[in-house]
C-alpha cells in the first residue's frame, strides 16, 4: 500500500476519479502517492527522465512521453541534442490535459526521437520492464508503459509511429491505443515521421483508455491534418454479439510467433467467439509483405527533414565550429545518437534525386495499396485481430546490435499504421510470466468499436495487470 493508503499498482484512473469525486482522496494525495512510487522504483526502472515537483491542477495526475512539449518542463525526446531544451509552449495534448486539471508527474523515457522498439536508443539509458528488470519495456514509449505497469502513474501519454504505443503496451501488460491518424493533434509533439506520428493513451484498462482519448482527441486549429472526431463513448457492453472479426492469416501465422504468444492469442480468440463474435480467417498479403519495407523508407525520409532543424542555431546543444557548416556538422555529430543518424542517412538517400521515384515515391504508392487492402477487409469484417508482437519482451541488449532484427519487432503493428488505422493493444495473458499483447484493428474512426470489443474481451480474459514481482 502506497502513501495515503492509495494502492497505485492497482488503482485505475477511473477509480482514482471516484476517490476524488467522493472526497476520499485529494488530488494532492494522489499526486504524492504516485510520486512516492516513482521515488521508490524509478531508480531501477528509469521510466522518468524529468520529474515535476509542484503539481499543476487538481485532477488525476498523468505521465507524459518526453517527445511531447510541456511548457516550462524540459523536453528531450530522449536525445542529448535537446538536453537543455525547455519548451516555451505546451503541445496541444499537454494543454488539453492541463485544461482537464491533470497535473503532469513527469516526462517519460523514450528511444531518441521515438526511433526504436526497446527504449534502448534513449540517450539517457534504457527503461527496464517492470515484469522483469532484465528485459526491455518495448519502444519507443517504454517509459510511459513501464510507469503505468509499475504504478508510477495512473495513465500516460505515448506516441506511435510504427508501434511505439502498441508494442510497449503489449510488453508491459497495458492497454494502448494508437488512434486513427488525424484524430489527435500533433502540435508540439517532436516530429519523427509526420504522416505516421500519432499521440495516444497508455492505461491500465480499456475504460481509462477511452476516458483519456476523449480528453486529448479532436480537431486542433494548430494541426491542419486533424479532423472532427465522433463523441468518444465509455464502453459498457460485456459481449461481442454481431461483431465480425477477421484473423489475417499473414499476421497470425507469421514465422517466428512464439508458441506462448500464439496460445494466449488463440484463447483470446476463443473467448471472443464465446462472447458472440463471428470469427473468420482472411488475407492481408501485400500489407504484411510490403508494410515494413515501405515504412522504413517513408518514416526515415520524413525524419531526415524533421530532424534537420536540430542545427544548434536556435536552441538545444551546440558544438562550436569555425563556420556555420562546420558548427552544424559538429553539433549533429556530437549530440545525435546512432539510430537517429542511421535513419537520417537512409531517409536522405531515399529522397535523393534519382532515387526518389524508386524509393519514397514507390513506398507512397504501396501505402495506398496497403490502405485499399485493409479497406476491402473492412467490407467483410468489423475488426481484425492478431498478436501485437510475435514475441514477449526480449532481453536488454538482445537486439541492440542488430538494427534489422529490431526493426522486425514492429512487423505486426506497422501495416495498419501505414493505412492510418486505429489499433488497440490489450493484454491477453502471460507467456513464461511475461504479458502478451492482442492487437485489435478497425477502420478509420472506429475507436468506439475498438473500445467496446476491447472492454468485453478484457472482462472475459481477466488479466491481472500487476507485474508478478511487484504483486
Amino acid at each position, binding site marked *: 500500500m502506497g502513501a495515503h493508503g492509495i494502492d497505485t499498482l492497482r488503482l485505475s484512473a477511473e477509480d482514482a476519479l471516484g476517490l476524488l469525486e467522493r472526497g476520499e482522496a485529494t488530488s494532492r494525495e494522489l499526486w504524492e502517492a504516485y510520486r512516492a512510487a516513482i521515488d521508490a522504483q524509478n531508480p531501477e526502472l528509469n521510466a522518468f527522465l524529468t520529474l515535476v515537483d509542484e503539481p499543476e491542477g487538481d485532477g488525476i495526475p498523468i505521465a507524459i512521453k518526453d517527445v511531447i512539449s510541456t511548457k516550462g518542463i524540459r523536453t528531450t525526446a530522449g536525445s542529448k541534442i535537446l538536453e537543455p531544451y525547455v519548451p516555451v509552449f505546451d503541445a496541444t495534448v499537454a494543454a488539453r490535459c492541463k485544461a482537464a486539471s491533470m497535473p503532469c508527474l513527469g516526462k517519460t523515457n523514450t528511444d531518441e526521437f521515438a526511433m526504436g522498439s526497446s527504449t534502448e536508443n534513449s540517450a539517457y539509458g534504457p527503461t527496464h520492464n517492470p515484469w522483469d528488470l532484465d528485459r526491455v519495456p518495448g519502444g519507443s514509449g517504454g517509459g510511459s508503459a513501464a510507469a503505468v505497469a509499475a504504478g508510477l502513474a495512473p495513465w500516460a501519454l505515448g506516441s506511435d509511429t510504427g508501434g511505439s504505443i502498441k508494442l510497449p503496451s503489449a510488453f508491459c501488460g497495458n492497454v494502448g491505443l494508437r488512434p486513427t491518424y488525424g484524430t489527435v493533434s*500533433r502540435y508540439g509533439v517532436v516530429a519523427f515521421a509526420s504522416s505516421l506520428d500519432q499521440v495516444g493513451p497508455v492505461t491500465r484498462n480499456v475504460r481509462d483508455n477511452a476516458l483519456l482519448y476523449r480528453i486529448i482527441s479532436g480537431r486542433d486549429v494548430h494541426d491542419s491534418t486533424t479532423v472532427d472526431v465522433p463523441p468518444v463513448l465509455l464502453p459498457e457492453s460485456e459481449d461481442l454479439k454481431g461483431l465480425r472479426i477477421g484473423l489475417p492469416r499473414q499476421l497470425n501465422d507469421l514465422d517466428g510467433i512464439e508458441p506462448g504468444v500464439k496460445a494466449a492469442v488463440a484463447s483470446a480468440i476463443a473467448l471472443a467467439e464465446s462472447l458472440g463474435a463471428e470469427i473468420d480467417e482472411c488475407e492481408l498479403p501485400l500489407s504484411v509483405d510490403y508494410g515494413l519495407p515501405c515504412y522504413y523508407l517513408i518514416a526515415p525520409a520524413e525524419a*531526415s527533414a524533421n530532424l534537420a532543424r536540430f542545427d544548434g542555431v536556435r536552441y538545444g546543444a551546440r558544438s562550436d565550429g569555425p563556420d*556555420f557548416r562546420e558548427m552544424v556538422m559538429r553539433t549533429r555529430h556530437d549530440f545525435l545518437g546512432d539510430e537517429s543518424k542511421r535513419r537520417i542517412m537512409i531517409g536522405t538517400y531515399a529522397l535523393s534525386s534519382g532515387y526518389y521515384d524508386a524509393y519514397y515515391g514507390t513506398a507512397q504508392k504501396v501505402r495506398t495499396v496497403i490502405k485499399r487492402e485493409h479497406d476491402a477487409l473492412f467490407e467483410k469484417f468489423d475488426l481484425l485481430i492478431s498478436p501485437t508482437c510475435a514475441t514477449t519482451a526480449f532481453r536488454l541488449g538482445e537486439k541492440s546490435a542488430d538494427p534489422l532484427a529490431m526493426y522486425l519487432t514492429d512487423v505486426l503493428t506497422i501495416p495498419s499504421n501505414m493505412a492510418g488505422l486505429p489499433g488497440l493493444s490489450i493484454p491477453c495473458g502471460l507467456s513464461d510470466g511475461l504479458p502478451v499483447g492482442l492487437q485489435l484493428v478497425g477502420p478509420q474512426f472506429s475507436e468506439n468499436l475498438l473500445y467496446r470489443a476491447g472492454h468485453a474481451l478484457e472482462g472475459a480474459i481477466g488479466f491481472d495487470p500487476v507485474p508478478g514481482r511487484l504483486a
Partner: protein
Amino acid sequence: MSGETGVTWEPVIGLEIHVQLKTETKMFCRCKNGAGGEPNSQTCPVCLAFPGALPVPNRRAIEETVKLGLALGCTIADRAVFHRKNYFYPDLSKAYQISQYDEPLCSGGSLLVPTADGDIVIGITRAHLEEDAAKNVHVAASGRLHGATATLVDFNRGGSALLEIVTEPDIHSSEVAKRFLQLLRQTVVELGLSDAELEKGSMRFDVNVSVRPAGTTELRTRTELKNMNSFNFAAKGIEKEITRQVAIYESGGVVVQETLHFDPGNEESPPTRSKEEAQDYRYFPEPDLVPIYPPLELVEQLRQQIGELPSARIGRIADTLSFYDADVLVTGSLDRLWSAVVEAGADAKETANVLANAFVAAGIDPAAVDARELAKLVSARSEIPRAVFDEALTHLGDPGFSADPYVAQKAVSDVSELDPVIEAVIAANPGQAEQFRGGKEGLLGFFVGQVMKETRGKADPRVVSDRVRSKLAG
C-alpha cells in the same frame, strides 16, 4: 546582336520573380507579417521551428496567389500541394522551406508586354506560394560579409508569404525584360498583393541569360544574375552579360554555368561569380499540410475582383496617344487620373504631357488630385504664365484645391498694353535691332525675353513674339 563572325546572336532570357505578399500575418503562423521592429520580436514556435511546431497555411495568401494567377491567365490547379525543399542555412529555421514543386497553384499563363512595335507575349510557367527566409546579419568590425566573425539571424521576416513567378525563356532583349518586370510590378501593386518595392526587397528577381544563333531553337548554357535591385540596373547587367557570352562564343569558347551575384548597395562593383553546384533539395510533399483544393466559386469570386490590367490599358490608351505616353502613364500609375482629366474636358495629349513631366517632378499623389480642377488648369495652360502654372501644380494635392485663382492670372495679350513696352525695348537696344534687320533672326528671343522681363512674366510670349517681329520689320 551581330558579332565579328557574322553570326547574329539572339539573347534568351527567363525571369524568376519573388514578391512578398502584404498579408496581415505570415504564411504558416499568425505572427505579424512584414519585417521591422526589434530583431526577433515577430516570432513564434512555428517560424522559429521549435520542436513539434506545425504550419497552418494562410488562407489570404492562397487567395491572393490565385488572384495573380488569374490576372496572368494561368490555369488554377484543382489540387495544389506544398513540398519541403531541404537545405541547411542559418536563415532557414526548419532546414527546409515549405514551397511548391510539381503541383503549384497556378501554371501556364502569360503576360502581354505592349511595345511600340506591337505586343509581345511572355509565357508564365508557373506562380506559386512559399515562405520567405529570415535575415542574416553578418557581424564584423567592417560590417561587411568579408571578414565576418559571427552571423546573427533576425527571424522577423522568416516565414513571410512569398509569391514566386517563373517565366518561360521567351524574352529576347534586356529592354523587354525590363518592361516585363515593370508591368508585372504594376500588376501586382494594382491587385493590392504587395508593395513590390525593390529597395525594400519586397520584390526581388533573378535573371537567366543565354545566347544562341538567331533562327535556332537550342537552349545553350545559361548564367544566373542575382541581387539586382533596379530595373535599369538589371537591363544594363543583362546587356553586359549578353555581350560577354557572345564574345566567348565568337572566340570559340564555352559559357560556364554560374551565378553572378551583384552587390545591391554598389552597382559599380563587378558581380562576384560562383559555380552553380548541383543542389539536391530532396523535395517531397509536406506531410504536415493537406493538399489545397481551390473551390470553383472562390476562384470565380476572385476573378471578379480583377480590373482592367496595366498591359490592356496601355494598349487602349496607345490608340489615343503615342505608345510612349501610354506606357509612361500606366506604369507611373497616372492613367486613371489622365482619363478623368480628359473626361473633364482637357486635351488628351496636353494632359499626358503635364502628367508625365511636371506632375511627376512635383511628386504629387495622383489619388489626391481633383480631376476637374486639373482639367481647368490644363485647358488654360497656354494662356497663363509658366510660373503661375508651375506654382499651381505644386498645390494640386492640397485639400480643396481650386484652379480658379491661377486661371484668373491669364497672360497679357492685349496689344495696346504690350506695344508701348515693346517699342521701349527696341528703342533701348538699337544695336540688336539693327542686327536683327540685317538677318540675325536669332535675336528675336532676346527681344521677347526683355519684354517678358519688363512685364514680370505676365505677357503672353506668343503675342509678344508676333509684335516684336512686325515692329522690327516695319
